């Protein structure tokens, strides 16, 4: 393949990959954040201690996390079809990607929120703060740097998943690598897609680290 043949394939692949990753990341954050907080609140000794809810949510999250993504991808085909109308294409892939990443992200959020000093929660309770207030004004802001770093990790995991999704009817760089690089034995093309994925991951990591640094700077002694 010449460069002029490769170029449109690669740019289309990159656009599709970014499209799938960013949308599924958004859905993951929206779904995983409340789940992670719920896990902390309902835990033993938590503000909304509820053993049943905690065990059920915990079990669902664990099942979601222990399924290999490629199997989840196939198992979810009926669900994806029901939600999007098809199970092929970048938009359809957002569903299994988000479903696969939500449990992962929820655990990251749980860890981040659990690390918030209980004294702060007590302080806001002593001011008459309700549980929603505590979540909004203490748990989330205090855990924000860790949560942002969890988002970065999740986005990178999603980039990996999205490449896998390429094998099962998704689009994006993974799909292009399989079709052109693997099935047509075009090693040069394969190499370029790999480099592109590495670049995307690196850029995401750099942006994430920068955001965490900016957030963490507030709390640190600089004087």
């Amino acid at each position, binding site marked *: 393949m010449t460069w002029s043949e490769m170029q449109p394939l690669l740019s289309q692949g990159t656009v599709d990959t970014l499209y799938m990753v960013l949308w599924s990341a958004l859905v993951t954050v929206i779904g995983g954040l409340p789940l992670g907080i719920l896990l902390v609140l309902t835990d033993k000794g938590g*503000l*909304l*201690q509820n053993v049943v809810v905690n065990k059920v949510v915990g079990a669902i999250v664990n099942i979601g996390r222990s399924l290999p993504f490629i199997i989840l991808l196939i198992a979810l085909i009926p669900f994806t079809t029901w939600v999007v109308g098809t199970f092929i294409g970048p938009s359809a892939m957002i569903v299994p990607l988000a479903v696969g990443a939500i449990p992962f992200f929820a655990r990251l959020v749980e860890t981040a929120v659990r690390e918030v*000093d209980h*004294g*702060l929660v*007590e*302080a*806001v*309770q*002593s*001011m*008459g*703060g*309700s*549980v929603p*207030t505590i979540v909004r*004004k*203490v748990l989330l*802001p*205090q855990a*924000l740097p860790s949560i942002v770093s969890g988002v970065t990790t999740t986005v990178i995991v999603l980039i990996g998943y999205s490449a896998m999704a390429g094998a099962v009817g998704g689009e994006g760089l993974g799909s292009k690598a399989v079709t052109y690089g693997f099935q047509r034995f075009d090693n040069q093309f394969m190499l370029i897609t790999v480099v592109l994925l590495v670049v995307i991951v690196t850029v995401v990591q750099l942006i994430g680290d920068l955001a965490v640094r900016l957030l963490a700077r*507030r*709390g*640190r*002694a*600089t*004087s």
Partner: protein
Amino acid sequence: MITTSGLTKVYQSRGREVTALDGVDLHVREGEVYGVIGQSGAGKSSLIRCVNLLERPTSGTVTVAGQDLTALAGRGRRAGKGLREARSRIGMVFQHFNLLSSRTVRGNVELPLEILGISGQARSRKALELLDLVGLADKAKSYPGQLSGGQKQRVGIARALAGDPKVLLSDEATSALDPETTRSVLQLLRDINQQLGLTVLLITHEMDVVKTVCDSAALMRQGRIVESGTVDGLLATPGSELAHALFPVGGAATGPDRTVVDVTFLGEAAARPVISQLSRTYNIDISILGAAMDTVGGRQIGRMRIELPGRYEDNVVPIGFLREQGLQAETVDAPSDGSPDVPARTADPLTKEVAK
């Protein structure tokens, strides 16, 4: 202002029951600074947390400003609206400050105001006012991570005052601070108490804190209040453990040929040359075995252990003279027959206890 009656707290810990509070009756009057002192594990922390129901007492009632908080609490773990409103009128200061590192100093002071639903402008005005009161007006834009321990606690105090509370609870507020900072923070608490007429309930393991700011004090041991009363009153009570702990004086006890007397000077009596008058009037030699003089709640208080020659029977008249001068005088008997020396023994662990 704060009354607890029959307050009991039992923790379940690995199937065992631990009694942290065992029927505590506490009465804090309006406008006073009340100190609860005791060693770690005596139940002080549980007590102060039960006052605003951060911890639910197992039984007993808590009344703050005429409102029965235990009745407001209901049964669930979650604090209902009534309890939350009541809490917003009780300020609390913590040993480890508990400031949000994600907010500026001003943001931290504004937090309780946000909870009270006060609008933006009024909030920032009030926050700056309070920061001015605690002497940190110039630090409004700093983050807690940039402040020293003493400054952090001042922010903590400003935050506790934001909701215009009638009552301030202080949970070992100075225990993480060095002695000099401790003094300035205590001075601030005292000023606030006097300027705003705030009732302060504080718990501490440091005798110095009681000595410096408290009007009244209680001694806690194993979940019970062993002794309580005004600091003046306690000092005037023969055999009071707190008084001995506040003013430990050494020296041997009464023997066959000598009489040892503890003399407590209160207020203006502290300024009069009583001992030399005694010596001249009765022509006796007096040796001073130990003495301590300090200012408690703004009043001079002294304690002295003196030795008079001869048996107790020979010294009834001089001791009577001391009492006539308005002093507390009690003979110190040998430890074998009892009470007066017991406090001297217990005074040690109390004053020497170190921060957790």
